[in-house]
């Protein structure tokens, strides 16, 4: 067992983990943050996506010990002061979710995508960047719409701030 310490959603946390413990299991089982999901065993589906030091990663293929010392953001930490993050709000407004199981990973991927591309997102780019996230309910139609809507709103927000 190894003691790991990291910051999760702004709070410093520690725990004893086996060397083989995956970050997703540390988050779900040790921290009780069950919004991050496991949908496959092969790093394909993206239900487990969280941010590590500001970049999206698959927490099912990251060991908990690899995340020691890092800043982790999970879906539970995205909304601030009870207000949905613009990506969360756009998923709701555009019906970008149905069963909700892939949703946390989709939203975390989308936030990172918008951060990386800024205002340069178009439908083709969004679809290509969703390669690592599988949804079985929506046919992606409304997810793509939601991400483009959120990107537009966040871009407008940034412009207004500048």
């Amino acid at each position, binding site marked *: 067992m190894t003691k790991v310490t990291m910051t999760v959603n702004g709070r410093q946390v520690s725990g004893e983990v086996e060397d083989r413990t995956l970050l997703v299991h540390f988050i779900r089982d040790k921290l009780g943050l069950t919004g991050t999901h496991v949908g*496959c065993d092969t790093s394909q*589906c993206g239900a487990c996506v969280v941010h590590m030091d500001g970049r999206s990663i698959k927490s099912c293929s990251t060991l908990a010990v690899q995340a020691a010392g890092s800043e982790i953001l999970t879906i539970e930490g995205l909304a601030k002061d009870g207000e949905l993050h613009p990506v969360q709000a756009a998923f709701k407004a555009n019906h970008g979710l149905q*069963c*909700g*199981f892939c949703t946390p990973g989709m939203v975390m991927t989308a936030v990172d995508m918008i951060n990386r591309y800024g205002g340069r997102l178009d439908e083709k780019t969004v679809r290509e960047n969703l390669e690592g996230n599988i949804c*079985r309910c929506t046919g992606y139609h409304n997810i793509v719409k939601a991400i483009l809507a959120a990107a537009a709103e966040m871009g407008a927000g940034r412009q207004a701030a500048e």
Partner: protein
Amino acid sequence: MGAEGIGARVARKEDKRFLTGKGRYTDDMVVPGMKYAVFVRSPHAHAKIRSIDASEAEKMPGVIAVLNGQQLLADGIGNLICGWMIHSKDGSPMKMGAWRPLAHETVRYVGDAVAVVIADSVGEARDAADQVVVDYEELPAVTDAVTALQPGQPQLHPEAAGNLIYDWALGTSEADTDAAIAAAAHVTEMKIVNNRLSPNPMEPRAALGIYDSAEDHYTCYTTSQNPHVARLVMSAFYNVAPENKLRVIAPDVGGGFGSKIYIYPEEIVCLWASRRTGVPVKWTSDRTEAFLTDAHGRDHVSTVKMAFDSDNRITALKVDTIANFGAYMSLFSAAVPTYLYATLLSGQYAIPAIHANVRAVYTNTAPVDAYRGAGRPEATYLLERTIETAARELGVSPAELRRKNFIRSFPYQTPVIMNYDAGDYEASLEAAMKQADWAGFATRKAEAEKRGKKRGIGMSCYIEACGIAPSAAVGSLGAGVGLWESAEVRVNAVGTIEVLTGSHSHGQGHETTFAQLVADRFGVPIDNVSIVHGDTDKVQMGMGTYGSRSGAVGMSAIVKALDKVEAKAKKIAAHLMEADESDVVIENGELKVAGTDRSVPWFQVALSAYTAHNLPAGMEPGLKEGAFYDPSNFTFPAGCYICEVEIDPETGKTEIVQFVAADDFGNIINPMIVEGQVHGGIAQGIGQALLEGVHYDPQSGQLLTASYMDYAMPRADDLPSFQVSHQNTPCPNNPLGIKGCGEAGAIGSPPALMNAITDAIGNNDLTMPATPQKVWAAVHATH
């Protein structure tokens, strides 16, 4: 309609919890003392179990127990069953072999469970499961249903000689159908293969069994589309516990698509193991287990003859289908290639003679059962590929051939049981062709040719039967249960409302749609309406969600209960206002005397019902009503899908450049949610046609597509955005005029896509999934 009423695009109430990580799925449940189950599964497709030695496993760290099928048998746990009886055409009942929750004598497919390890952690349970030594005597296996019917093949169950479960027929007599075909001016003949699929809801199955020895009571959290049916079957057939001692909870469930209708070995074993060990036991499937053990869908091989007279009218249809059932008969399996398939073989067409013959066959593969559409995609694919082929052979336009044969007056009795109540197939066809700019296709094709691309267009006109189903009718056809739905409407003393429903939402948005129904009726905000579902302790009884039945059947039950609540509320209001109850109307959250300014607010009527200080003479206090709704007929959603593709002849890669869906779902409560259902269904249909396929090695019976590395799930960049529209002929047989929308996309899309690809490449000899390799080969076979 009001901002939140029927027809409004209301954003979903349930979204906030899913978007903020507060959804509560079965694997999220943690209870004190909980331990973890890992199953020991057969690595062989067919084998005798000589012995199971768990002595080393039991010594491993953290292990509580290793349990096997002999112990399960000794404790009196019953066989898994198929709940629908089909009789062969010779009158004999279907031949159901025994399915043990833990196999103790014979394993019949790779993944068949033989033992379970209960340990402190999943990791420790996995480590110990690796140490369980099962001595197998391997037997030859067969995975393909056509082969399994041949003489000399491995036999799966002693009950089913030749692996034949039933040999069933429906419709016009074979002789009359043959005579019509013999007399035809043209006959189109095809072999149609409907590929085997894995449903793949993103949430893997899971179960948490909790035995309370003090109360001798069991609780089961499970990923179910129908928790009440799970409780019923586990009580009545598996002998887990009597119904009053068994609570089944299906909390948030991450998609189902049919695969979570059935009761599987794992939830039974978790409940039983909890009693044996005295600790709560949780099992969560990993994705490979899901591929191995979730019920698969489709897997039909058919031959079809479609006969035409000299005026191109269809005179007869003859279909012979072999359906692969896998190693065991899953809960609804028997109904899928019979009453959910052959009954839809008339499609949208007036066909005077239809004869269907279906043989159901055991093979050494995972059980096969209903998957989104269940039988109707198979019927539609067969019909729509065949009529498209006929149009090519006859040299007429595919739209004109369909038009000529459309059913145009309703009700319409088909030769295969169904009585269509309403529809306007021409309207959907026209809307789709207009939306797709069918007339401009030739120009687009010519332009694509200049770029070296082969462009094709294809259509499909589907019909399906939803809203399952009239209980007496399905009972006469072999169903073991009635297919009504229940609802209870509880108005609280302050006027807020709880609706308890036997439907189960696992993505369909019931918490919003059902609340809209109540808001529409009583003028209360949807935030004041809570939908309660998925818990057998809260909702008395229900039949669950599948077959696009929650709108047509589940909401109809709510309407019946709302009618009763409204009647009582009006009586109370009339009494309070000293008016005649027939003059009371409900508007904007108030009960008013029509044509006057007298009114009482909704909450005051509710409060009066519970204070009971001033009720009409003889009236019981309270405002709570329940109802059971049993449909009088199936509903018949229908529509037209058009797909346009471009194929790169160098790579065989298909690009979908346009996908148009024109659906008639009857009346719609929330168009945003309905469109979402269509999008998802189309994606699954495109997945079937272009990408997905379950493959077993025919010699070893090993599953070759057991992960997302091998099974091609549709990704965002495989799909286009969809153009979706609705036409509406309201269903005349339920109070809301709803037909259902959950499966249409998966039913209508595969033939539209395959018709488009075969149109593009000029070669009709192509099976699903149309992978680049197959398409490339088909392109080059024509040159």
